[in-house]
Structure formats: C-alpha cells, structure tokens
C-alpha cells in the first residue's frame, strides 16, 4: 500500500526441520484464506539456533519461499538493493527476534479474530466493502 510503498522486500526459504506448528503448508490453503506464518517463523527460529548465519539464511529461504511464494524471493530485489542486502535483512531478523518475540507471538495468536472484528465494523460503515 502507499503507506510503505518505497520500502523494499526480502527473503525466504524452506524447511529444514519438521515444524510441528506448520505441518499443513499454509500455501495449500484456498486463495481467500488467512495464512498465518507467525508460528512457522517462531518454530524455525528455535530450530535453527545452532546454524551459522549463512546456513541459517539459506535455510530460511528454503523454508519460507514455498510458504509465501514470491514475497521473500530475490525477484523482489530491485536496484540499488542487492540480494546480499536481502540476506542481511534475513540475518538481522534472527538477531532482533528475541526483543519482539512475546509481542510477535501475541499478535500471531489474536490476529485473525482482531481483523475479522475490524472488518465487521468497517463493513457497517462502508457496506459495499463486504
């Protein structure tokens, strides 16, 4: 959206490990469904703590690319940005995650209900949006 339209994109990848929280690939859901990748990221972060950064970034790309095809792909990297910078953003997400984890998980747990509720009240004001 216009709000953040100049901000750039990022990363991705595939699964290294069995992810209890996402054994049903969200991408397989019907196109109009809600796909929540918060549990997948949290699980991935926990399960890849022992990897060095390069391996962990590669593992991220391998896991999340099929979960959200295109979003984390290098195809969203536009000059002057580089794939190396995208990798750096992925790596940085690992470093900063502990500081946001509690809120990240809280948002993930309550998001669907919050958005549904907001949509209902929005539709009451703008009925044609429903």
């Amino acid at each position, binding site marked *: 959206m216009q709000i953040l339209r100049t901000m750039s994109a990022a990363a991705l990848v595939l699964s290294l490990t069995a992810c209890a929280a996402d054994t049903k690939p969200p991408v397989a859901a019907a196109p109009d469904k809600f796909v929540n990748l918060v549990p997948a990221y949290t699980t991935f972060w926990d399960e890849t703590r022992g990897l060095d950064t390069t391996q962990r970034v590669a593992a991220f790309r391998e896991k999340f690319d099929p979960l959200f095809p295109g*979003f984390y792909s290098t195809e969203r990297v536009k000059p002057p940005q580089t794939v190396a910078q995208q990798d750096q953003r992925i790596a940085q997400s690992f470093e900063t995650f502990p500081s*946001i984890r509690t809120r990240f998980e809280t948002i993930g747990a309550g998001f669907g209900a919050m958005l549904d509720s907001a949509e209902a*009240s929005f539709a009451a004001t703008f009925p044609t*949006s429903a």
Partner: protein
Amino acid sequence: MTMPTYLIHSLGEMDGGTRNIRGRTLFVFGADVMARVHDGFNSERPFFHHELFHVYHTPKYESCDAVWCSLWTEGLAVLVAKRLNPDATDAELLLTCPRPLRAAFDANRKEAVCAIQARFNSEKGEDYRPLFNNPKDAAISPRLPGRFAYYVGYLVAQQAEKTHSLQQLAALTPEQAKPVVKRALDSLGNCGRTRRKAA
C-alpha cells in the same frame, strides 16, 4: 477476510498493506513491525480500519500517482480510522512515527503546507518520499519529520468532511476529489504567490 491475507515476519518491511505478488494482490501484515511500532497500543482496530479503507478505496486511485493523490488517500484513511475509533490516540492512528506529527505541524504549519503545495502535482518519488516516508537523508527540513504529510492529509480530509459524509468522500473519483483537496489544503495555509511577487 476480504482478500487473501498473510501474517508474516516481514523482515522489517511493513506493518500492513497490500502487495502485488506474482500477479496477485494480497493483504500482507508484518507481525514483526507491528510488534515493534505498535507497542503500547490499546487497540489495533484503528490500524486495521486504516488498511481496510485502503483496500476499499484504492481501486479508484490506482492510476492516481501525484502527491495530492497520496495526501488524499492517506489522509482519508486516517480520518476513517479516527471516526470509527473516536478514542484512538495519535499513536494508534500512526501519527507519532518517527516523532509526533501534530506537534511538528503546529510549530511549522506554513512550511508544512507550502512543502506539499509545491509538490502537489508531482509524480516523482523524490518528492513523495520525504512527505510520506522517513528517508534518513532526504528530509525536506529538520523541522518537518518524515511522514508529516499523513497528518496534513488528515487535516485536509477533516476540512472536506465539513461538507461531505465519510461515504461521500470515499466515493469521490480522482477528478472530483482533486479540487476538494486543493481547496482544503489552501485553507490550511497560504503560501502566497502574492508574497513571492512582493519579494
């Protein structure tokens, strides 16, 4: 959900908005940025209403790329969020990032209005960015924080609301909206061709 919706770790890219990914328009929310930027919010409803309004309203403005178009679409989204959530704080309306926009505007009203008037019809990214983003090295002036145009847009929408309902404002086409936006912006401050001539 109104459209396919993803809640993800966005790697710092976004708290929410639409993205066109491989030909599909998707509603994407970054739980990482929400966690960081929305910390302390009592409610996410104003934020959701802001984004839902964009989804509802933007199709009419997809080919409207000038600065005034963003001033209008963003300002109206903030107004809708406020009207649907009368108790929403400036923070919950995203008007305090990177620093409080209301206070900066109040202290530098003329400079803020004139900066937008001077770029009103521009479609250049270099004109858009310091108004609606927070580029580290491209601020218009040290007195005007990045994103200050969100607050100016909100004031513009409030002016327009004096003669239109929210639904009427949302229904305006770009051709109908442009003179409304121009009048409302002019009412916020006079940048004065007269003054320039006098100088």
